[in-house]
């Protein structure tokens, strides 16, 4: 029962809190006070109350996509391994990493279609770039997790993270995840989530037509995806750290959340120092993720 409660807490509060922490840290680095930590949640509540405007050109896909993307992200968030939480028996097979990545891909498929649906060039531009970036990010994710899974001999994340992996592979894979996550989540240096110049945006350009409730669940979905990707990187680091040895589940859970927030702070600090890359050089940046994951695979194969 406690696990169910933990899940619910995690899925409703932590994504917003994570986004709030990233914003706050960025603001502090720029000598601003910044918004309250729960501002993303307030925004969500406010948007839910507002009305929405839908483009006359858009079809039912536009309305369906955010809901489908959110439900896919929710299910994926439940399935990925969080420390302190055991996947219910019978569901281990559902934590197959290819399944989770492709399920997130299904969410992306609908989001891209929705971006193109209103017939606006901004949507098209964002969708085109998002599709382009995932060509680099997805191989990195899959090679990275496969490298982790080799020592467990399983493709189920539940087994992989229970059995453990070599620290070298873990560090390389976690770094690959981190870079792939920055690209997939449209954060700096690939995309600037705070900019207001549509031409330079990726994710914000995609959701330009969304408003009100539709925008609220889209933003929630982004927060959840941030949580999933950064969480996976954090968990990979955590499992090989010396801190993490036979603790009670609740402590493990709290350490896991703390690690997630630390990763968020790291993202914020990194965003404070780096600038957005020229669009043409984004592929070079994303290629680092692929190279790191290939190195992880090489180490995993050579040691095994």
């Amino acid at each position, binding site marked *: 029962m406690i696990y169910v409660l933990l899940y619910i807490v995690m899925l409703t509060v932590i994504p917003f809190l994570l986004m709030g922490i990233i914003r706050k840290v960025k603001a502090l680095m720029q000598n601003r006070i910044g918004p309250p930590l729960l501002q993303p949640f307030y925004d969500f509540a406010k948007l839910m109350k507002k009305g929405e405007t839908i483009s006359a*050109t858009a*079809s039912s896909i536009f309305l369906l996509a955010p809901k489908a993307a959110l439900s896919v992200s929710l299910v994926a968030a439940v399935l990925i391994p969080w420390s302190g939480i055991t996947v219910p028996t019978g569901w281990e097979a559902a934590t197959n990493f290819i*399944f989770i990545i*492709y399920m997130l891909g299904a969410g992306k498929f609908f989001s891209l279609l929705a971006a193109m*649906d209103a017939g606006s060039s901004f949507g098209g531009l964002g969708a085109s770039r998002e599709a382009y970036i995932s060509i680099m990010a997805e191989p990195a994710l*899959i090679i990275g997790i496969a490298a982790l899974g080799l020592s467990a001999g399983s493709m189920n994340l539940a087994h992989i993270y229970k059995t453990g992996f070599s620290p070298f592979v873990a560090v390389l894979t976690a770094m690959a995840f981190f870079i792939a996550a920055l690209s997939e989540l449209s954060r700096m240096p690939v995309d600037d989530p705070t900019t207001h110049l549509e031409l330079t945006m990726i994710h914000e350009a995609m959701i330009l037509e969304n408003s009100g*409730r539709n925008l609220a*669940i889209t933003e929630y979905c982004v927060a959840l995806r941030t949580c999933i990707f950064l969480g996976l990187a954090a968990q990979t680091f955590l499992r090989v750290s010396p801190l993490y040895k036979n603790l009670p589940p609740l402590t493990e859970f709290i350490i896991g959340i703390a690690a997630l927030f630390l990763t968020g702070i790291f993202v914020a600090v990194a965003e404070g120092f780096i600038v957005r890359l020229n669009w043409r050089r984004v592929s070079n940046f994303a290629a680092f993720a692929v190279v790191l994951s290939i190195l992880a695979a090489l180490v995993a194969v050579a040691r095994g």
Partner: protein
Amino acid sequence: MSNGVFLSGFSIFCGTAFLLWVLICACGLIWKKGRSALFPFITGAAGAILAAGAVFGGNAVFSIPLPWFLGVAGFDFLIDPLSRVFLAIIGIVGIAAALFSPGYLHHLRNRIPVGFFWSAFSALLLSMSAVVISANAVVFLFMWELMAISSFALVATDNESRSVRGAALTYLVATRIGTAFLLAGFLWAYKLTGSWAFSAWHISGSAAAGPALLIFIGLATKAGSWPFHLWLPIAHPAAPAPVSAVMSGVMLKTAIYAMARLLVINHIDFPPMGAILLIIGCISAFWGVLFALLQHDLKRLLAYHSVENIGIILMGLGIAAIGGQIHNPLILQLGIAGAVFHCFNHAIFKSLLFFGAGVIDARAHTRDIEKLGGLIKNMPFTAACFIIGSAAICALPPLNGFASELLIYTGLFTMAGQAASVGVRFGGVLIMGWLAMVGAMALACFVKAVSVVFLGSARSPQAQHAKEGTSGMAAGQVFLAAICVIAGFCVPQILKMINGILTDFSPVIPAQNIWTIPMPLLAGVLLLTTAIIWAWMRIASRKNPAKQFITWECGFGALGPRTQYTATSFVQPIARMFGAVYHYAVHIELSGKDRRHFPEKISAESDYEPYLQTRVYSPIVKFVRKFSGLFLSRIQTGSIHQYLLNMVFVLIILLLVVFHK
């Protein structure tokens, strides 16, 4: 084996279906202009009988009794689990095509003789079914040629335009070249074993190199795998939509069937074959999707995706062959299951997508996606089915494409985990990443296709006024879309049927241990979550209902269809990233007085050079032409005297050769 068992078990189903098809074939030839509804009905019914027999019937061995004989071997047939899977594919796509075709042919009614179409179509279905149950090389080649000829006739049905005639000829030449290699390979295998029966072909080691490679090239040409795929994107768009569906969905698979039977699970055991299949498969998958991204002709885009999917299937076969080499039954089983299941899935969703393209072609009178847009409003059925097909081909769960790709991923992962050599293991992980990249590119390509064709606003008047297809056309698509969903949920049952292929010569792990993902449960959870979110949105919208307004245009005034993102722009970043592979270039020209700030006219043009075509095949074709012009035209002058002289010379040379020995 010659007779007696002719009417037993499965062969009753098979025989009935064959007789019905022969009947249609004959009636169609007699009554060329016939438009009777009996043609599609009987063709489809025969397909249904065949599919039912394949799923519920058993194995069988039978021969057509004498006097039917092919010179050196009889009409021997063998129905085993491998052929039954392919018979099921042929039957199911046959039913769907019979549902879809009448509506589509109505749109071509004045250009093609409908009776003749059904005649050739049932001949194609008949010959494909016969190919996958042939027990010896001679029957196989006979049926293989019947398949080539009937499909050539179908490609050339709508032969008023020059491009279709050219495409049909290209296709014919490609099939000739493929058969030439195949024939050489078969003869070599016959020479080594002294038998025409496939079951007697036990060749291994380096002696197998010659026949294995020749057979591989012959079959790869038919399957449309890189680098022998050039005919495929030319021939498939030229054919009527149901023909493209059957050719792309099913006919290519007969070559895969033969590869699986002869090179992977049977006895022509050439050790490097696994690596060859895997590498050619990787290149083919990448190449297909890369060129698909650049296509604006919807059917040509789909044809290039066939190259991609054939690549994925070859990867599965390669994994299986490697598994066989290193004596790992799990890898062998995963590879075969992935490849065969992907054959089935690709047949279903590719036919579905070609049907969608057919409806668009028939109703909007164009296949150029840059002239389409907004079709979802007038064609909801076609749009929904096309989106399901796209999601399935992009391997998105819970649809069927995901199941087979996951099996291939699992095969690669197992290879990476359990193979002895570090090279093979590292290769396994890398190819997983490669497959992920191909998958992401396919996703981009189908987002492009769906969104430019169905979403946004219409880019031309004919797209704006396009109507939904007939109920038969919708039924054909809904049937296949339903199978995409059902096959995604019934993976263990399907795997059980596929596992039958291996029971005779390799230990088999039960299907429920191979496929452990509780897909129906997960899909239920996903649906439930979506429904809850939807209900929540409904409740929230009570106070503030949604308003409709124009798309945001930055205050510059109304947006038009021309301001939408085009397919070319959508793929431009990806095309530029891989630009080195095909010399992608965009030329932009601005003209006017102050060109930079106030251009009067902007023209942009993108261009690419398919190196394989321009640098490899064109020089060969040029050489053949030149050679024929210089040399052959001196021999083939058209004068009967000279032909007689030639024959005398050849006779003398042959006699000399014979007596020299």
